[in-house]
Every structure is written in structure tokens, then in C-alpha cells.
């Protein structure tokens, strides 16, 4: 069977920037290749300045590769046509403050050729999706950071793209806003939309991504399926509910009968600080 056309195909991408001092070249991205299949959620993680944003900008044609190629659904990303199928949320976006949330979405929709009833319906649908129906008529200037990120995500989705690129989607957002964005990413995955996100919030990447790439100093140092990358192959986890001390003692005794097996740790699993915060503030288990 033929393989589907990758949503993203980056081949041997190199990007050099001129530094202001003596016009020396700085290599921001060094021979990166990434392939993302339709419907996957790919997380690119790495420290600040490792080249994540540059890769995304190259994929959107905002910077030209020094060498190598980038393609979106098989189309060269330097060509404007490739942007028909992509939505982008930049890091810390600021939209036009004089527009309301609704007007913002209408503006981006019109840029993509939407108009009339179709545009109005799409705007209403997206405001509902990102939970900003009540704030749709308010000026963007009065939006909180989390609301800005959500309206940003809505504008990225306005023309129903098959690929969404998110650059640090939860940067500076509080845990509740961060959780809402995570849930939105999961909704996109359910709808079969490919998501390419970069972040340095590792826990969040772990929650939503199928594939992960680790970038350091412009090079991909590790890449693969998340489950494969984080599994500890020689260990097994059993989590019990309402286990009595007698049962635990019996299990420990049973393990002792197998010399090759070592009991590494027993104890109570812990929730995360984020889950605790959300439970205490929202009153529910996320």
C-alpha cells in the first residue's frame, strides 16, 4: 500500500544567520530532518535557542533555508500555496488590539477567502470550540494571556487546515489556561488534524504527543514514538487500588522466590502538582 503524503517533510534543513558582530555566521539549525504523517501530534522539545522556532518559521516560509527543503503535504513551503493547508500560532502572539475576538477571526477568515454565511458560521463554531463565545464581542486588548492563546488557536484553524503549527502554545499561561489548550490539542487530534508543536514544557508534550523529537544546539539528538522513548524496558509497573498489607506482603514474598527479579520500589503513586492545582481550583479531577 502507498504511504500517505507526509503532512510535514523537512529534509536536511540547515539555517545560518549572520550575526551583527563581524558578520560571522551562526548555525541555528544543523541538518534537521523531520517527517510527520497525517493525523499525528509531533512535539519538538529543546532548550531555548536550540532552533525550534527557526524550524517552524522555515516550514512557514518566514525564513528561507540555507540548504535543505521543507514541504507541507508535498508542497514546497516557500510557495504561498502551501499555506492553504496550515494554521500557525506563534509564541506570545499579539493580535490587533482594536479588533474584537470575532472581528479578528473574520479578518483572518477573509484573508483565506471565506465570506458571507460560511465565514460567520465558522467564526461562531471556533469561538465555541475555544470557549470564547461570551468574549467574542470584546476587544482583544482586554483579553488575558490564556484567552489570547485560545483566540490565536482559533485563527490558526479558521480555514480548516489539515496541519496546525503551535510555537510554545502554553508559554506564560496559567495552569487552567494551559489545560484548556492541552484539551484543544487533543480535540484536534480526535478530528484527525496533524499538530506540530514545540515546547519546553516536557510534561505537556508527554500528555499530547504521539511522536517526539529532541533538539539540542540545532541538531535532532533523539526522535521516535513517545511510548518507545520513555518506556524503561526492563521494568514493569503494577498499580493496585485498595490493596491490603497482607496482599502486599504476599506479593513481596512471591517476588522473593524469583532470584532474577528485583523489587525496585513500592509506595503510593503521586499526583502531579498541576493535577492537584486543577482539582483544588476547578473542583474536579482533570
Amino acid at each position: 500500500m502507498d504511504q500517505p503524503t507526509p503532512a510535514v517533510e523537512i529534509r536536511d534543513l540547515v539555517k545560518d544567520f549572520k550575526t551583527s558582530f563581524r558578520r560571522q555566521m551562526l548555525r541555528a539549525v544543523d541538518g534537521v530532518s523531520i517527517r510527520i504523517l497525517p493525523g499525528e501530534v509531533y512535539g519538538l522539545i529543546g532548550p531555548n535557542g536550540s532552533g525550534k522556532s527557526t524550524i517552524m518559521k522555515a516550514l512557514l516560509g518566514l525564513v528561507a533555508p540555507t540548504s535543505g527543503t521543507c514541504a507541507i503535504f508535498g508542497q514546497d513551503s516557500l510557495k504561498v500555496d502551501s499555506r492553504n493547508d496550515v494554521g500557525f500560532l506563534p509564541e506570545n502572539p499579539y493580535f490587533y488590539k482594536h479588533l474584537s475576538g470575532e472581528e479578528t477571526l473574520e479578518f483572518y477568515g477573509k484573508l483565506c477567502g471565506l465570506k458571507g454565511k460560511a465565514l460567520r458560521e465558522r467564526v461562531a463554531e471556533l469561538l465555541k470550540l475555544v470557549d470564547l463565545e461570551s468574549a467574542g464581542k470584546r476587544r482583544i486588548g482586554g483579553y488575558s494571556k490564556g484567552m489570547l492563546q485560545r483566540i490565536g488557536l482559533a485563527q490558526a484553524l479558521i480555514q480548516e487546515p489539515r496541519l496546525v503549527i503551535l510555537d510554545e502554545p502554553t508559554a506564560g499561561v496559567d495552569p487552567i489556561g494551559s489545560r484548556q489548550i492541552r484539551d484543544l490539542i487533543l480535540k484536534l487530534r480526535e478530528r484527525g488534524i496533524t499538530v506540530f508543536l514545540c515546547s519546553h514544557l516536557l510534561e505537556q508534550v508527554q500528555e499530547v504527543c504521539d511522536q517526539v523529537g529532541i533538539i539540542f544546539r540545532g541538531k535532532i539528538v533523539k526522535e521516535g514514538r513517545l511510548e518507545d522513548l520513555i518506556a524503561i524496558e526492563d521494568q514493569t509497573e503494577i498499580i493496585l487500588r485498595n490493596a491490603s498489607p497482607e496482599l502486599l506482603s504476599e506479593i513481596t514474598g512471591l517476588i522473593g522466590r524469583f532470584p532474577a527479579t528485583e523489587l525496585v520500589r513500592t509506595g503510593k503513586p503521586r499526583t502531579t502538582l498541576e493535577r492537584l492545582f486543577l482539582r483544588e481550583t476547578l473542583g474536579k479531577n482533570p
Partner: protein
Amino acid sequence: MTAQPAPLRGSHFSRILVIALHAFTQLARMKVFYFLAVFAVIMLVSNFFNLPQHEGPESIGVNVLRSIKSSSLGTMHLFSVVLSVVATALLLPKDIEDRTLYTILAKPVPRIDYLAGKLLGVLLLIFVSLALMDLLMTAVLHVRTGIVIDQQVAYAKQQGWPEDSIALLRTEALNHGANWSLQGAVFAVFLRSIIIASLALLISTFSTSTLFTTIISFLIYFIGHFQADALDAFLRGGTAVETILTGLVSLVLPNFQIFNVIDAVIEGQAFPLAALGKLTGLGLFYAVFYTVSSWFIFSEKEF
């Protein structure tokens, strides 16, 4: 394998119009139109301002009309030049700084559409402002011309002037009133704005700040008034440096002195259609030249 490119959604024209209307709204919501209130005050003041007279009583009315035209066209000139430079210089760097440019260029929007839309938005704002100012000026001049003619005819009759002299007096007053030459002068003000705005757009494509763009644009506008002198110097020849400098100035910059025709209209002279046609051609040529140059620079720009 490379997939067939999907056609762009929407036409160039519709995208340019969306960006232009947005830029217009953006500037309008910055309360730019408050300037019109200032203009209305200037009109009122100039209408009642009494100039010192050194001529006969038959010239008093005409001088008032000249004063109204002079202050109105002067204010239009100032407003249009300042807005052309500042608004154009503001829009592009602000979009880059706020990263809104990323979200726009990440949509299927060719860079030329973005540039043309921004320029058109600024020009639309200037056009609407000039049209409103023109309307006010024309209305005031129309009323005032009628009063002046009545007063002058009454004065001439009292003095026992012959009919043909009275008719001449009326014609002279009408020449200073709201006529087609005056509308041509307002259009010339707009044409000058087109050139300046497209020049500011070109500078803002490689400039790093609004301040830099504003200063350089005003400087070039100032130098443009010496383009004719530069051309003369270039044709006369000189040292290699002089030839290169004068050649560059006379080639790249428009001759802003040709807009002095506006002053002639203030003095009551007619604005020939041929001169207006020449001015329009020149304005459009430089607007297209600067916009295409902006596109060449902007299409290679990285963000």
C-alpha cells in the same frame, strides 16, 4: 513526490481589499479623524480673520478667499504629508514587533498583497480625510464667494463703475472661489501623498524602526524639493562624486517642485487639465516604482 499546488483561496484583489480596509479601520480607531475637528476650527478662524490691507477696497473680499484657500490647502498639505509618512512608517514595524505579521504571512497571503493592502489602507484614509476637508472648504468658499461678489458689486455700483468692469470683478472673485482648478489642487495634494506614502513604505521594508523610517522619509521629501536643481547639476556635469550623487537624486526622487502648481491655484490661476494629467502620470509612476521596489526587498525579508 511533489503534490499539485492547491489554488490560492480568494483573489489578489479581495485580499488586498481586506488588508486595506483593516489598515483603514486600525488608523481610524487611533482617532486620526479628530484632526478634522482641528481643520474645521482653522476654516472658521480663516473665514473671520481680517488681513492687513494695502490695496483698494475692491481687493478685500478676494484676499479673504485667498486666505481661506491658502490655510485650507496648507492644512491639507501638512495633514497628508504627516499621515503618509507616520501611518505608513507605523503599520509595518508594529506588525513585525507584535508578531501579527507571522500570523498573516502564515495564511495564503502573498507578500505583495500584504504590502499593497497596507499602502492602500493609508491612502484610503488620506483620501477620505481630504475629501471631507475639501467638502468643508468648498462649502465655506461657496458661501463666502457669494458674499464677496454681492459686496463688491454693490461697492462698484456705488462708485459708478461701468458694467464690463463689474463683470470683470465678478469673474476675478469667481476665479478665487470653489472651482474645478481648486478641486484639481486638492487632487494634487492627494497625488503627493501617494508618492510620499509609497516612499515611506519602501523605507519601512528595510528599516528597523518607525522613527528611522519617519526621519528618512521626511528627509527624502525635503531633498525631493531640490530634484530639479540636482538634475540641472547632473546635466552640467562635475566631479565623479557630484555626478553620481546628482544623478542618483534626479533618478530616484520625484521633483516635488512640480506640486508648486497648488500655490498658483491659491493665487487664482487656472489648473490646466494637461498639467493635472502630467502630475497624475508622475504620481502613479513613482507609486508603482516604489511599491514594486518594496516588494523586491520585502519578498526576501526573513522574520
